[in-house]
């Protein structure tokens, strides 16, 4: 059975179509990364799937429940972590967790709170007000609260924004541990390294699903060629190359330039030319996920105009 199986979801706000015929299937136990630029409809799509928004079109099932008719049942079986910290800042960690436990009618409340505090390493801060926690601890509390009722599907909306690398690492270890136990996870992110930690990724832009698959599949399907350029006066070189045939992206990476294009032949020809300049070295590079996304963002904007 698919944990998420939705087709042609449409959501409009006023006259603006924010989600435009998005279809998505996620298998049970899968960790799916949800990527796309700001304002591309990631949050809206996630909210549609956890019953916080009602779709204007489309159909499908989440955890076997009808997306439109069974919103309440979906709410009970889904854990949703909001982009912005949305627990009570004037309550302590333990009080917040007890509140959530009671809302989900978990009994006995105390045992559930204790177990959750232990499992997520929150026990030492149990009596601290949530408002005084740092970003990493807030995120840990939010995760604890939304997995406490043992949901079958976890929807995470940019859970690691503003969190330090160590906390992010711990967070992802936790996500993988949960997925190993059969939990399905859909997580939106802007971080490429996090996308690479997912079993599969979906890329959405301007409300439309542009690509889906494993990281390798998405990179390969994009059909981009990448070259690495080294040499003197890279700044000037970059500006010069930007308009040349076949060159679609030029981005500085430390002391090198990454040059990316979809027309492999034209790009190779241009760079062969560049490589002949004194002191300039050109070599083949590996196309990264980020290169692919930048490419997507450029072409999607073109489609809109």
């Amino acid at each position: 059975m698919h944990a998420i199986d939705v087709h042609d979801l449409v959501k409009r706000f006023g006259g603006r179509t924010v989600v435009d015929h998005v279809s998505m299937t996620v298998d049970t136990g899968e960790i799916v990364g949800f990527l796309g630029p700001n304002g591309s409809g990631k949050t809206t799509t996630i909210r549609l799937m956890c019953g916080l928004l009602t779709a204007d079109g489309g159909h499908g099932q989440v955890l076997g429940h009808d997306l439109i008719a069974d919103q309440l049942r979906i709410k009970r079986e889904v854990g949703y972590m909001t982009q912005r910290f949305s627990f009570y800042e004037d309550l302590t960690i333990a009080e917040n967790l007890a509140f959530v436990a009671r809302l989900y009618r978990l009994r006995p409340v105390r045992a559930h709170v204790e177990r959750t505090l232990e499992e997520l390493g929150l026990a030492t801060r149990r009596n601290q007000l949530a408002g005084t926690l740092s970003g990493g601890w807030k995120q840990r509390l939010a995760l604890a609260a939304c997995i406490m009722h043992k949901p079958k599907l976890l929807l995470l909306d940019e859970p690691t924004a503003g969190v330090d690398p160590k906390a992010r690492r711990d967070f992802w270890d936790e996500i993988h541990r949960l997925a190993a136990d059969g939990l399905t996870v859909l997580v939106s992110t802007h971080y490429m390294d996090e996308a690479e930690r997912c079993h599969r990724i979906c890329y959405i832009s301007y409300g439309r699903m542009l690509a889906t698959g494993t990281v390798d599949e998405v990179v390969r399907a994009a059909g981009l060629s990448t070259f690495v350029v080294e040499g003197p006066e890279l700044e000037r070189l970059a500006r010069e190359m930007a308009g040349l045939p076949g060159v679609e992206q030029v981005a500085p990476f430390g002391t090198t330039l990454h040059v990316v294009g979809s027309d492999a032949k034209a790009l190779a020809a241009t760079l062969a030319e560049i490589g002949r300049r004194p002191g300039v070295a050109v070599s083949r590079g590996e196309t990264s996920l980020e290169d692919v996304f930048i490419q997507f963002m450029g072409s999607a904007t073109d489609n809109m105009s």
Partner: protein
Amino acid sequence: MTGFFSLGRLAALLVKEFIQMRRDRVTFAMMLGVPLMQLVLFGYAINNDPKNLPAALVATGNDHYTRAVVSALELTGYYRFDHVVESAAEAEALMARGDVVFVVTIPSDFARKVDRGETAQILIEADATDPAAASGAISTLATVADRALQRERGIVAASGAPQGGLEIVIHRRYNPESLTQHNIVPGLLGVILQMTMVMMTSIALTRERERGTMENLLAMPASPLEIMLGKVLPYLAVGAVQVAVVLGAAGLLFGIPFVGNAWLLLSAVLVFVLALVLLGYTISTVADTQMQAMQLTFFFFLPSLLLSGFMFPFRGMPLWAQWLGEIFPLTHFLRIIRAVMLKGAGPADVAFETAVLAAFVLLYAALALLRFRRTLD
């Protein structure tokens, strides 16, 4: 230039303020609406010398002296004899319910005494729970009635008949010393409850929305009814404390008598507070921000204070203002608390007003539940 005043910087701040003012429609409406409302209410509705007050006449005799006195009283414009009753008990009940402000009793031997030249008596009982409301009517009474009687006697019997006086006995009921506190302090309980209850609950949902916790609350399985009750019921406890404090102080500091049944009053208070917290909650389903909720609350407060009969005599207002006053729970609560505390009214006397409050409870709860959205769309 860099120092402590620059017109350019001031202009930047002014422009920014005006832009923000224009964006916030509710604030803008309030700035125009409140002064206009105050003007209309103060200007047209409020009258400290109410006329045309409902009165009951207890008169067994139907002689021309009685008729003369009654029509003279009506001509003053203060008295409107809606009820003509046979017995004092009937009149008493009318006054306890608040249907009449005055009971004028003209004894059956009135005409006989006037004819014989003896001193005749008229008994006027005034509902003095609101001393200001009745004072104008009482002060004109003696001269008017006396003059009417003189005239009538002059017509009937030419000179020669012995001249007796007219004695007017005035009973200020429920508040014999005409203390304003007796009227104001019980009313204050209603006003204080309204102030805190509506204000506290009007930010119930807007605070969740502003702090971003609403999204989370909606994502969890809490039903609209549960959220509503969870938000308003804690304030019943706050209200209970306020009631105890105000009623205690009313007795200790102001010596306000409490002649009625305390349990009857407390049950009415409970219904009133429920209506208030649900009204506040309804406001919070409408307002987008806490600021707007406060403004809407204030927009509701002002006319309710002016038109409920708390600050100015209810019967002194023109009819349209009285009808408007009926839409405020405070109006009905004031009638209940004054009736129970000062007049010793029983359950039957306040049943109607309590039922009106209960109707407000249902209305507000229904409105709030209809307005509440389980989703973010």
